[in-house]
């Protein structure tokens, strides 16, 4: 494509397939004790 660069594909929909195991870290535990951001956490399976 000339006008558009795709940085990443449909990652959220892919995670529907095997997500939800719940083994990941709780979000407020690490550095953020008020301003919750979840997107920077990692998945335990990866």
């Amino acid at each position: 494509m000339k006008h558009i660069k795709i940085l990443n594909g449909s990652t959220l929909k892919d995670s529907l397939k095997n997500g939800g195991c719940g083994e990941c870290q709780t979000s407020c535990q690490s550095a953020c004790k008020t301003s919750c951001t979840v997107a920077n956490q990692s998945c335990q399976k990866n």
Partner: protein
Amino acid sequence: MIHKFSLFGTNIVLDVNSGSVHIFDDVAYDVLDFYKKHEASTIYGKLSSKYSEAQVTEALEEIGELEACGLLYSKDEYEEYLPLWEKPAVVKAMCLHISHDCNLRCRYCFAGTGNFGGDRINMSADIGKKAIDFLISQSGNRRNLEIDFFGGEPMLNFHVVKEIVEYALSREKKFNKKFKFTLTTNAVLLKEEHKDYINKNFHNIVLSIDGRKETNDRMRIKIDGSGTYGDILPKIKDMADSRNQDNYYVRGTFTRENLDFSKDVLHLADLGFKQVSVEPVVAAMDTGYDIREEDLCTLFGEYESLAAEYVKRAKDGRGFNFFHFMIDLSQGPCISKRLGGCGSGHEYLAVTPSGDIYPCHQFVGMDEFKMGNVMNEGLNKEIQNTFKKSNVYSKEKCRGCWAKFYCSGGCAANAFQFNKDINSPYEIGCELEKKRVECALWAKAQLMDNEL
């Protein structure tokens, strides 16, 4: 739903539901404003002063291609899956308030300088062990369990911390659990002898420092009113180095009194810290240092300039991690996690020195949120379910928000503090969060673009 924004000449388009992120050139970016709303011929007309018909046609075709591949205007299919994820509530993390006392008197402390409005007491080892038993009993099949030692100041009661750690580890095998420990400390009492123990047993340590000396010492003060910067910096530095600059965070808070907080972040980075988190204070409106709507514009500018410097340093090989700019576009958390957020009140609970249970550390001391005590088996299921049901779809504001899968619905405690409803997010927090996500996406795009 899509979200488009332009920062430092890069046009970024996010397809909210697929999580796909694109860089558009100016033609495609402008065309996108009219896509789906007008016929091609009308769009040519509207943009004829800027672009040729051929350019517009090409851009339209490429946008159409993205849409056909499910990478633009993709549907939200997640809400219908919500019932599938309806599993019984399990608890997987606990914040243990090891001490409701503190050796500092930080002006912005949400815990009323340590005691959360109650007595200045320490947790006993007995209560701590009961909390571990309670967590195990409530954790179902969940294997990974987390304990954060929090305060007040947990180092005031470190021998109990150790006893609890040893106890938890001794239960791992029997119950097939794996504990991860973290510690949040003001670093004043950190000594050589603690270092080895912490580095051996603790997965993460959060070390509080606000940034520049004048910023830190304005807020983080001792009982006699003097500043702490000079005392804590060498200890924090030593601790971070002893962990090879990994698995820790220096964590600061900015207030209305240092709206130029990007300088504090960069100060910490200049000192050699590689893991930095600095976030806005959450303070009542009458404190004087609370963040107000009129400050947002300044703060947006701060996040932007910080993002620019962040990318520059990363490209020069002098990079550091800023907690709120870290976004993994390929393998972040799954959608189920993104819908629910922090897990307070159902997956994550806080326990006070006397064993009382609250939805999280920020709710401690609010009677209407008391969920039980670790000495008794039960947990208030009504409160637990209220929190469990709270997700980006249960909050009207979040449902329509483009940042929902990054923010996950914000902080329940802030929402309650400002709007008396855990499902009604705190607006200033939202504005800052959205700006942070934009800057994080931008920074990621710059760094990925380098690799592509």
